């Protein structure tokens, strides 16, 4: 847990004094990723650097695991936290293993322990230890280097990780991938993370909570959904952008918006005339054809008219399948691209998990708004 309590930082003295962070109070709970978000010069990096005392706090207190950081030994404090920076900062004179081993060595681990930990960490960040252990940073691509940077931050298994725009210097394609990998890792490790970013997309993707700063002040601290749907003021709504409903689509998972028990299912073995009759009776514009609980395709009344065969053979195939864990944005994109208003959703094993339609997407967005706007409606 990291508690910021009325934290103020003033650089310089007298007339030249600049307030970098101004009376900031919030708490990052255990196992939570808090993204510090804001334009440059808003104080987010200063706040991070005060957390491990690379900068001294002018007023207020920062407590880590309940202890006031200013009463702790700065070096011990830093050894107890992982630190990952945008410029990566791998030591070019040390091998990959040597870089990862820096903190464990300072903590006095024995050689065997360090070696196995290095291999374990390289595996965790998807780099083959056999290939990369003895290489030098200059031999790695930017994305690989930052994977090592993350591994180095995690080396001594700290409870807390401080990350200063860790993926900022990586090209967009690699960035997306490394973010996904990191999310998967964090899902297992459950570290308490303070993560500085200036990118709203990254913040929405990575954060459990987002802290938005402006001119050194904390403007809003809340979940990504709440920030998107309930911006505290004009600055926040401008910062998250006019397309915030679309951004929510990126945040919402298909499994949260889909219909888990669709009625319009037919088995592949059923006869076309029977299915047609059923569809006309229930006024269904479309039915999902499934076989062994896997989606085969879809049929609509026009397709079945005058046909006698089984629907499994007549069904049109879906151009893509959607996973329950994918963002709703992907579902909407598929609908727009293929002009199909409903898609089957499959679980990790390819079995049908539910169906998602355009109307359901719209409804889930409206539900989110409804939660927020109930009070104003009552007025």
């Amino acid at each position, binding site marked *: 847990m990291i508690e910021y309590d009325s934290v103020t930082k003033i650089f310089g003295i007298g007339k030249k004094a600049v307030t970098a962070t101004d009376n900031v109070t919030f708490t990052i709970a255990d196992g939570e990723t808090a993204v510090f978000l804001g334009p440059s010069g808003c104080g987010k990096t200063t706040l991070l650097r005060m957390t491990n005392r690379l900068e001294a706090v002018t007023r207020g207190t920062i407590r880590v695991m309940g202890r006031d950081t200013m009463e702790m030994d700065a070096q011990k404090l830093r050894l107890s936290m992982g630190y990952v920076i945008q410029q990566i900062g791998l030591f070019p004179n040390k091998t990959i293993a040597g870089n990862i081993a820096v903190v464990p060595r300072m903590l006095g681990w024995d050689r065997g322990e360090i070696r196995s930990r290095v291999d374990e960490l390289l595996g965790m960040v998807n780099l083959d230890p056999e290939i990369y252990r003895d290489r030098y940073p200059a*031999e790695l691509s930017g994305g690989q280097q930052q994977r090592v940077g993350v591994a180095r931050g995690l080396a001594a298994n700290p409870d807390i990780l401080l990350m200063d725009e860790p993926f900022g210097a990586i090209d967009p394609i690699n960035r997306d991938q490394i973010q996904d990998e990191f999310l998967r890792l964090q899902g297992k490790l459950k570290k308490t993370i303070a993560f500085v970013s200036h990118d709203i997309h990254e913040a929405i993707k990575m954060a459990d909570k987002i802290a938005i700063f402006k001119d050194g002040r904390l403007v809003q601290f809340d979940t990504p959904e709440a920030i998107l749907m309930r911006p505290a003021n004009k600055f926040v709504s401008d910062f998250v952008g006019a397309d915030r409903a679309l951004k929510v689509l990126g945040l919402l998972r298909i499994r949260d918006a889909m219909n888990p028990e669709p009625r319009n299912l037919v088995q592949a073995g059923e006869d076309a005339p029977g299915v047609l009759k059923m569809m006309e009776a229930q006024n269904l514009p479309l039915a999902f054809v499934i076989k062994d609980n896997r989606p085969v395709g879809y049929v609509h009344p026009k397709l079945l008219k005058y046909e006698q065969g089984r629907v499994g053979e007549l069904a049109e195939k879906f151009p893509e399948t959607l996973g329950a864990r994918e963002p709703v944005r992907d579902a909407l994109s598929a609908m727009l691209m293929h002009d199909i208003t409903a898609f089957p959703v499959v679980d990790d094993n390819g079995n049908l998990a539910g169906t998602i339609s355009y109307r359901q997407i719209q409804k889930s967005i409206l539900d989110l708004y409804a939660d927020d706007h109930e009070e104003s409606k009552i007025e």
Partner: protein
Amino acid sequence: MTLFAFLQDNLARTLFLAWEHVWLVGLSLLIAMCTGIPIGIAITRSKDLAQKVLAGANVIMTVPSIALFGLMLPILAIVGHGLGKVPAVIALVLYSLLPIIRNTFIAIKNVDPALVDAGRGMGMGKWRLLREVEIPLAVPVILAGLKTAAVMNIGIAAIAAYVGAGGLGVFIQQGIARSHETMILTGALAVSLLAIVVDLAMSLLERWVTPKGLKI
């Protein structure tokens, strides 16, 4: 008399003078290294101090060597060492300091601040950071400074023959006094050869001590 015949007749003496020359330069370089590198590192902590030290070393550099020997003579004469190897070594040390201090200072200053930040943020202390990161990364530039000092000092040491320090300069000095061309030529060629060999050797050393990760 040909150069070859002169060498044949004076082989032992030539080798001895060459040895003396190397010894003078080597000893002064060692002393300058042991003082210059720590000074160079120390002044990275204070901009003010760095300016003063570098300016001071610069002033020493601008004094012509023959004048420096002249200036030191009355001072060192007090302790009975106005002539000989002592003033020579002192002068060579003084001349070496500038390139060594300056290169050390620049090399440490030029270490990527992100690396220093990463090191500090991970909990490295000043000394550990210096030992594990800053100095290894600075080594190639520091060595380039040592090379400059060594090559320059081989030339200056030849002049030290005038204050009785010995070395290959003796051939040049005595050759001029006696209008003995072959003798002058031998001394001049030997000094030049020595400078070239030392330059090559230092370049090899530079490559050898540069951390492997920096050569990729």
